[in-house]
């Protein structure tokens, strides 16, 4: 099978669109979150999708519902400062969800276990233009972080590389690579620079993996919405080492044309085949060690 066709089929299998059942489930949850917040705050903050849903880079194996909850710069209904806003939004959501505070986000856990994480990021717009936003940071040197959702989304969505990004996210997931998706997205856009998905996914992936495997120490990334946001901790030597090793492995597989080892097979085997194979194959030997649990 031609590589481009294979990669497109993998995207068809593993990618998620806004029409998918998964996305629809997220839409239902977003409406619930929106109601929980607007029931409490008169000022009606702006509640929007963020993350991969908005960037159109969702993949089936790992997707989250990221929602921002931004208050107008002169709206004090949730508090006078960022910390109050963070805590008051947390309290508002705590009526319906169990909340796990993250660095700038509130992770929600409901009675029903979702297939995805729900993260709500409270913040306050810097001015009337409702672009730049200040977020509260629970940890780190600075308690306040300037960001801009539209800039972040545009940087990825308009990069012409959303298919490559999805494939790289599938690769990250398959190989359990310990790097933030935000960093990986920035790396794809930075490394591929003027390349686009249209110029060939195989070409884009080769260039990306080659650069990370051979030259990662010379690759720098910057938060497109805030050049002062230090990404050093997210892209430190441990992350670089892990990415470089995994990319070298990827290049080796590409050179041997072993694409299925990188992104998996287009079709999964049938359950009845698996059952039959387990009965007859040496895979399932009676002298194998038996699992146990120390309790």
């Amino acid at each position: 099978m031609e590589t481009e066709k294979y990669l497109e089929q993998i995207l068809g299998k593993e990618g998620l669109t806004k029409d998918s059942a998964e996305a629809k489930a997220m839409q239902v949850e977003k409406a619930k979150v929106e109601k929980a917040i607007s029931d409490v705050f008169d000022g009606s903050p702006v509640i929007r999708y963020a993350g991969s849903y908005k960037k159109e880079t969702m993949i089936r194996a790992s997707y989250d519902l990221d929602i921002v909850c931004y208050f107008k710069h002169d709206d004090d209904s949730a508090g006078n400062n960022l910390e109050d806003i963070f805590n008051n939004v947390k309290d508002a959501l705590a009526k319906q969800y169990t909340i796990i505070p993250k660095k700038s986000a509130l992770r929600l856990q409901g009675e029903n276990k979702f297939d995805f994480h729900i993260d709500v990021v409270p913040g306050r717009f810097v001015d009337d233009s409702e672009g730049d936003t200040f977020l509260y940071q629970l940890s780190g040197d600075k308690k306040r972080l300037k960001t801009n959702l539209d800039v972040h989304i545009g940087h990825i969505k308009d990069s012409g590389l959303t298919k490559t990004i999805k494939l790289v996210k599938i690769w990250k997931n398959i190989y359990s690579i310990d790097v933030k998706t935000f960093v990986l997205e920035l790396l794809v856009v930075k490394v591929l620079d003027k390349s686009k998905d249209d110029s060939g996914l195989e070409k884009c992936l080769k260039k990306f993996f080659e650069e990370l495997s051979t030259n990662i120490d010379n690759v720098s990334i910057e938060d497109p919405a805030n050049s002062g946001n230090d990404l050093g901790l997210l892209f430190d030597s441990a992350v670089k080492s892990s990415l470089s090793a995994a990319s070298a492995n990827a290049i080796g597989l590409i050179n041997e044309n072993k694409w299925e080892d990188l992104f998996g097979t287009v079709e999964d085997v049938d359950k009845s085949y698996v059952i039959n194979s387990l009965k007859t194959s040496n895979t399932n030997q009676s002298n194998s060690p038996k699992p146990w649990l120390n309790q």
Partner: protein
Amino acid sequence: MDYWHIKNKGLFDSFKSEINKNYPTLFVSIADNLVYIKGTIRIKDDKNIVLDSFQIEIKVPYNFPQEIPEVRETGNRIPTIPDRHFEQDGKACLCFRDAIFLYWNEESTILDFMKKLVEPFFVWQIEYEVSDGKNINKAYAHGMDGAFQFYKEILNTDDIKAVYKFVEYLTKKKVKGHWNCYCGNGRKMRDCHFELMKNYKQKIRAKDAKKTLDGFNQIISKIANKK
């Protein structure tokens, strides 16, 4: 601390080579001086058809191969619940603790570990999923019940006293021929199950047997207290 991959570069090279050659969807990396194997393990049948795959992380201890690596499933696919044989921290219980060294010794390679312990564990997981958990009898019961099961199996006995005595002997530095045989028939070890005892004594570590013996003693105390 003497890290095995620094101390024995040749061993580390063959370790990487075995993983690369046999598991192209796994890769070896180092973080905080510890070696990790990460990626996807594909479980294949005799016809080389992939039955299923699991995202895993294997943390190799600093004193490998004296101690065996820890395995975790990282794809959030398998719930980390007792029935799936995962501890609360996500560590897979590949095998009954005392039995591990029946499949592993200090000469073993990472390939032995993968073939003898990791792959069978995930085959069991596939079987669990396709049979809706009906393969539970192919695993040991949790805790000391499973320990009894294991020892009953290898000794081919239902005699709990014999099992207890056998485990007690395993905890000793040396088993003497003039001791009464664990099986309780009144003969000396040397005239009874000495060879079998010596065989398992070589493989099952005294420190593991000690933990099992402690577990047995706790159960005995609980029963005695209830009475």
